[in-house]
């Protein structure tokens, strides 16, 4: 369900992002209700038998503003949540971080049938049908491809949310056995292609609103716009939309023609936008809501939820991770020696102890791309002093590089270093504490940091113009990793906000896409990460813990850090406890 491409790098700056929960797919054996078992049995915890019927209301963190998630303008985590129940999927990441191919849609796991050009074969189940009875088929694959390409001869104006999917595809055909074969362009390697979604919206309905879209780029654009502007009355998922007020709320009812093994039992599932976590928790206490998985962690809410015996809650590492970025275009910060000393002065363990560590056990994050549980994890900062808070060492580095520390002021060639502007998104309690701590660490090596928060309405401007010297924010990732390096570090990437430009890094990034082997690609990605660490440019802090809260009456709801929509990944299994 996770839409490829867009997912990877959703910025988790506090207000902008939403995530959701997790669950197991395939019903599996129960490991009991409650979240206690989620650490050991991430895909089966809080499971149980459902009774028929019931209504459930789930809070999502912010609104969405169109219905076509393939268009850049409307694409957001919240839209992904709103259409999760009605779009078919090829598979998704489970809470254990492993890819699970959909047994509902596919007969067998997609097969890599050729390495160069890379080609994948998908066999659809005959039962897999849209709610009007039309089978899901090759046209749906093609429409999805066309809607995500920058090729104007395929779509005149689709405003694609991402083009890395569509631009890699050379052709999509049906072979003699009826299976669908997706062939990539020659020389185009995508190691985690398997985890990319290949279908979204129904092509036969596109045909009604953009006749001849397959050959006419204008008609294609019309169909794409139509999906954007109209509330879906079609479904290829477990639910149908009964009513919706865009950006505010949506009511789902079971899709009577849902072809999957597990059928929804709920009469109604409401998605309701509740932006304030405190309000969300109060409403949960008051029986108006049944659960939520807020995108950022509010310490007070988390603490109260944990102590609240009337509800269930769980706190576990989420998809996002916090980090400090230095702006290398600053006249002082362009010196890598100074940057390294500054990052050495920052005591990451102390920061974590004073922030998330107060709520749950957290460990320092020491890899940009992989969390400690990933098979590809490697300690990028092993042997480095950055993040240790070793002030003596930082001072030594500085004096070796020609800086002088006297009277609590750091100077070079008689000129005072700094002051630097330290920024974070206003209203984020943990980053507020962190900012004051960092101010303290840097003070010890004679550097003054002025804290200036970023108003939500200014976020774009600040990052786009690199209007900071030091910034703390979060990236949200999932287990697919091959596009993130380019996005974070490439010298030409618009989201490389600190503007680090290192040819060696660029070369290393390019290698990630030179293989179809995931393990090899992960090795290349880690190499690139190590180079970035040497540049003393970005310092990871922590994999942000996230909270899930539910009422006690619901079963089969659990968080999924590996999916951008989090708990909603298995919404067809949700139900009222029997």
């Amino acid at each position, binding site marked *: 369900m996770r839409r490829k491409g867009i997912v990877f790098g959703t910025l988790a700056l506090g207000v902008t992002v939403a995530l959701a929960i997790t669950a197991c797919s395939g019903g599996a054996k129960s490991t009991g209700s409650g979240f206690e078992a989620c650490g050991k049995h991430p895909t089966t915890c809080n499971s149980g038998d459902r009774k028929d019927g019931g209504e459930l209301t789930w809070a999502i963190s912010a609104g969405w503003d169109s219905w076509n998630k393939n268009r850049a303008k409307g694409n957001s985590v919240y839209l992904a949540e709103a259409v999760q129940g009605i779009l078919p999927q090829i598979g998704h990441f489970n809470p254990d971080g492993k890819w699970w191919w959909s047994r509902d849609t596919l007969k067998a796991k997609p097969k890599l049938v050729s390495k160069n050009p890379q080609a994948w074969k998908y066999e659809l189940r005959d039962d897999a049908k849209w709610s009007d009875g039309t089978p899901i088929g090759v046209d749906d694959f093609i429409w999805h491809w066309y809607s995500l390409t920058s090729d104007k001869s395929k779509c005149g104006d689709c405003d694609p949310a991402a083009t890395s999917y569509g631009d890699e595809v050379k052709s999509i055909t049906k072979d003699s056995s009826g299976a669908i074969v997706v062939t990539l362009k020659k020389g185009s390697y995508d190691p985690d292609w398997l985890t990319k979604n290949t279908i979204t919206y129904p092509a036969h309905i596109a045909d009604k609103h953009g006749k001849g879209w397959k050959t006419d780029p204008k008609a294609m654009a019309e169909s794409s716009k139509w999906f954007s502007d109209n509330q879906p009355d079609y479904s290829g998922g477990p639910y149908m939309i009964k009513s919706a007020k865009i950006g505010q709320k949506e009511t789902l009812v079971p899709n009577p023609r849902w072809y999957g093994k597990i059928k929804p039992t709920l009469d109604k599932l409401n998605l309701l936008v509740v932006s304030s976590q*405190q309000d969300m928790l109060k409403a949960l206490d008051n029986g108006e809501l049944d659960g939520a998985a807020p995108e950022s962690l509010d310490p007070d809410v988390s603490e109260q939820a944990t102590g609240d015996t009337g509800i269930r809650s769980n706190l576990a590492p989420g998809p996002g991770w916090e980090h400090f970025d230095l702006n290398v275009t600053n006249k002082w910060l362009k010196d890598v020696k100074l940057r390294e000393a500054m990052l050495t002065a920052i005591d990451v363990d102390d920061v974590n102890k004073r922030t998330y560590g107060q709520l749950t056990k957290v460990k320092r994050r020491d890899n940009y791309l992989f969390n400690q549980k990933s098979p590809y994890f490697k300690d990028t900062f092993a042997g480095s002093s950055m993040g240790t808070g070793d002030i003596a060492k930082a001072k030594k580095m500085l004096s070796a590089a020609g800086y002088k520390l006297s009277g609590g002021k750091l100077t070079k060639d008689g000129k005072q270093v700094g002051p630097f502007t330290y920024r974070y998104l206003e209203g984020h309690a943990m980053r507020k504490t962190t900012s004051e701590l960092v101010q303290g660490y840097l003070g010890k090596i004679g550097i003054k940091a002025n*804290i200036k928060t970023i108003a939500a309405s200014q976020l774009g401007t600040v990052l786009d113009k690199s209007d900071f010297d030091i910034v703390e924010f979060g990236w949200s990732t999932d287990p697919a990793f091959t596009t993130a390096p380019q996005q974070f570090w490439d010298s030409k990437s618009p989201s490389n906000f600190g503007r680090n430009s290192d040819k060696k890094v660029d070369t290393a990034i390019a290698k990630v896409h030179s293989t179809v082997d995931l393990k090899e690609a992960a090795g290349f990605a880690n190499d690139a990460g190590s180079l970035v660490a040497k540049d003393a440019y970005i310092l990871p802090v922590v994999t942000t813990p996230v909270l899930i809260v539910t009422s006690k009456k619901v079963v089969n709801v659990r968080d999924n850090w590996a999916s951008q929509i989090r708990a909603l990944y298995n919404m067809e299994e949700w139900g009222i406890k029997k």
Partner: protein
Amino acid sequence: MSDDLALVAPTGVRERGQASLVLRRFAQHKLAMGSLVVFLLIVAFAFVGPLVWKYDYHLYREIPSMEPPSLAHPFGTDRAGHDVLGQVMRGAQQSLKVAFTVAILATGIGSIWGAVAGFYRGWIDAIMMRLVDVLFVIPFLAVAAAIAGGVSGGVGWFQIALILGLLGWIGTARLVRGQVLSVREQEFIEAARAVGSSDVRIILRHLVPNTTGVILVAATLEMATAILAEAGLSFVGLGIQSPDTSLGLLINSATGAAFTHPWLFYFPGLFIIGICLTVNFIGDGLRDALDPRQTVRL
């Protein structure tokens, strides 16, 4: 907000007398006097307190997290390691600075605006009062929020005060104009004019001083309004930004902890209420003292 408060003024204030008479009457007003004392204590707490108390509003690593009130930290500590007493002192100071600045700005602009309009009457008055209407029509909080949200790097106390002051003077302008309209007909203005005083001189030396009563009362109301408006802006995330703090910001960031860590919520709350209550009572007392006819006394 300031407008409906201003409307509460039950009767036109008729200020005539010598300052001493007013002062004596004010001194007899027990509640107002008591409020004045409490208010001055709060001011001292906010401005002198930080010089005396061992912690300021910054984070200290040696301060334990989430301690309930104790001898070492009379108002407790917060999660990150701030001394809440130090924060409340700073918060009260910033809120009071905002309040004083707004009161000065709003009464300054408002009284001159109102006096000029009332003095000249005719088309000058019409235009000036239409301009007042223009501001009156704009929802105060929405516009203040829009401007505050646009200030790069977030707003400090002075920007907040500037925004609130520049938007909040219309109530005073209307009151003063009304007062001037009646004062200008009196003999001593005629006399001043007869001896050839300039308009500026008449306005500044005669009209404005003769509306001091209204202005003072309005100023107290402006102060309470400013503190609450700053708190409202903090609530929508557009008030004074951390690491600096204000009472509004302190309460707002503690609403989630109101029941689990009440000291974070109630101490700054009590100070907001304390300031607004005493300021309102002082205004009430002033009004009574300035209006000899007025027998109502609380």
